[in-house]
């Protein structure tokens, strides 16, 4: 094992026996031996990766791809059929919260039980118990039985214990949705702190936003193998685009099926007329995909951005602006899906991937924009008061629930210049005054 690594996973595989009808009792095992048919499902087909000390890694993938199994192997809840896993340091897992809680015992007693399950000794728990209580914000209730807690309080206590186990390696499975918004933010900040203290973190999550906030690297597992690995900014768009296409093709399949059925019906009813069958679906399937699929753009194609141009106040197309002058973005679109209104959103990143700004019509006006079959939407900025640098713009048409018609990452890049020598991320409007006069 390399000294700079905290985790080394070499080519692990795992098969599960999936029983079609599993007999666990003697009677079932002897009498119904036929029922005990099973198939071997290969969940992991050779996964290898390394994690450096202090690195945060996100595991993503569709349901059943093997990411949770991988995490369970890392925690040693399960063991691989072949391959090796090496870990350096104390491992703690936030997979199950509140393990071993006894409802009739006080919050304080349960802290001791729960923390001991994570492998802490009495002395170590004594040292942490105040931090845990403080973090859970349950000072007034800590000596009441846990059964009197609300579910939110219960989870807060459980999370507080889990997060205060100082581990060298922290494994997390989809549990950051704890408590209210402020508590979630607190958990996240704590996680960042833990990371900056040098803890290696592996997170399984479906929330790409959360992963982007904390992970240095994303590993996309697909059908038991690693499909993509790299910075979240590179991998997530590809993953999103893949998933969108997946749902789309499934929807198309369903549509085809439906049409076929309808046609079959038609054929029966109109059999006498011998009319030629409608071939609309084939046409639809043959329609060339106008979007290039380089992982930067995804969506259902019901609305498609055509021409996006950036102009100054005189209508001249430019890509360099002062941070004090107005910028107009005009977005031309086609609307083959005949969608009558849509949310339109924008996100701005600096070229070192710092997220500068993001908004959409729902946030701004709590409304969607009305659309035509073909039209132009203009987004006007009074000015973009950031400091000098290159800024990348994402644009999207989507439904309020987040379903994307067309999400385009990195549509254009603007070079913003600052006439003054200010420093920092942005330029604030300000003035100075001295009571000594001018």
């Amino acid at each position: 094992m390399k000294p700079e690594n905290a985790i080394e996973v070499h080519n692990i595989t795992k098969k599960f026996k999936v029983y079609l009808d599993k007999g666990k009792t003697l009677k079932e095992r002897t009498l119904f031996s036929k029922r005990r048919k099973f198939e071997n499902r290969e969940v992991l087909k050779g996964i290898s990766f390394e994690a450096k000390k202090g690195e945060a890694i996100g595991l993503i993938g569709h349901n059943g791809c093997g990411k949770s199994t991988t995490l369970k192997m890392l925690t040693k809840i399960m063991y691989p059929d072949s391959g090796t896993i090496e870990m350096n340091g104390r491992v703690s897992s936030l997979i199950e919260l509140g393990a071993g809680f006894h409802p009739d015992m006080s919050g304080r007693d349960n802290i001791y039980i729960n923390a001991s399950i994570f492998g802490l000794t009495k002395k170590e728990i004594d040292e942490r118990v105040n931090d845990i209580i403080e973090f859970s914000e349950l000072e007034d209730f800590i000596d009441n039985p846990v059964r009197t807690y609300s579910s939110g309080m219960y989870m807060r206590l459980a999370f507080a214990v889990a997060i205060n186990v100082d581990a060298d390696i922290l494994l997390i499975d989809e549990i950051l949705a704890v408590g209210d918004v402020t508590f979630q933010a607190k958990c996240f900040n704590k996680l960042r702190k833990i990371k900056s203290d040098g803890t290696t973190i592996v997170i399984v999550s479906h929330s790409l936003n959360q992963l982007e906030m904390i992970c240095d690297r994303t590993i996309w597992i697909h059908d038991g193998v690693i499909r993509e690995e790299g910075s979240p900014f590179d991998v997530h768009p590809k993953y999103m685009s893949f998933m969108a296409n997946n749902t789309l093709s499934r929807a198309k399949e369903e549509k085809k099926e439906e049409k076929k059925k309808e046609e079959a019906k038609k054929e029966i009813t109109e059999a006498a007329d011998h009319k030629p069958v409608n071939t609309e679906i084939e046409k639809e399937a043959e329609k060339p995909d106008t979007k290039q699929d380089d992982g930067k753009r995804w969506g259902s194609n019901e609305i498609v951005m055509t021409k996006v141009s950036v102009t100054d106040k005189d209508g001249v197309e430019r890509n360099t602006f002062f941070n004090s002058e107005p910028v107009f973005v005009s977005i031309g679109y086609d609307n083959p899906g005949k969608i009558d209104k849509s949310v339109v959103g924008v996100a701005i990143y600096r070229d070192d991937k710092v997220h500068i700004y993001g908004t959409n019509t729902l946030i701004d006006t709590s409304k969607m924009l009305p659309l035509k079959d073909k039209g132009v939407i203009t987004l006007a900025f009074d000015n973009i008061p950031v400091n000098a640098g290159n800024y990348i713009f994402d644009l999207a048409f989507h439904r309020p629930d987040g379903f994307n018609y067309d999400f385009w990452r990195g549509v254009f890049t603007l070079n913003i210049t600052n006439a003054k020598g200010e420093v920092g991320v942005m330029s604030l409007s300000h003035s100075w005054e001295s009571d000594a006069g001018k």
Partner: protein
Amino acid sequence: MFKRVKEIYAYRTMIYSLVKRDLKGRYKGSFLGFLWTFINPLFQLLIYTFVFSIVMRSNIEDYYMFLFVALIPWIFFSTSLAGGSTCITTQKDMVQKIYFPREVIPISYVTGLFINMLLSFLVVFAVMFVMKYTFNPLALLCLIPVMLTEYILALGFTFILSGVTVFFQDMQFIMGILTMAWQFLSPVMYSAEMVPEELQTLYMLINPMAPIIVSYRDILYYAKVPDFGMLLMSLGTGVVLFLIGWFTFDKMQRHFAEEM
């Protein structure tokens, strides 16, 4: 193996808190709370006294005490086997979601029952004191190796049975029947001398619990030092079983999470 022992030692607080949770949590919410731990054996003893000195008079002197000093360790042993066989499956959530050395569960289960037995013995001692039984300090000292032998034997069985039950759930019900049969094959309700003479050696040899029960009775009821030769046989069986049990448990535990 050594690494394993070290790891289990690192989780000693977990064993401690699981035992504490079981003992304290069992009567939590009841009015008398922890007192029930003592009330239960006390009333059991009172009932036996009534039945066996008034209704079913036996020709064994103080039969209730004769029975009781053997019954308490027997209950510890049989519960370890019958109840212990489900100790992993009842902690399913924990086993599927969290890593800890799996041995912790059977160890804390058996230890909890063991402590319960010790507490029951406190009641026995109190009653014996009130009834002016003779106490032989040297014999009482021998209780320690006897109890340890029984503990090792019980833990060895629980390792195997708790693991097997994960894969084969009938085990728990089979054990219910087996422990009942085993009780009648052990000198709990009768004395070992009642067994036909030609079978006695065999009787003591094949049943590792027989010398243990006899030893308890020797120490507490007859106030004499037990026969260590026989007890050593039980200890030997216990240690071998413990090692086999632990080894098979370790092999089985790798598949617990996926089998449940």
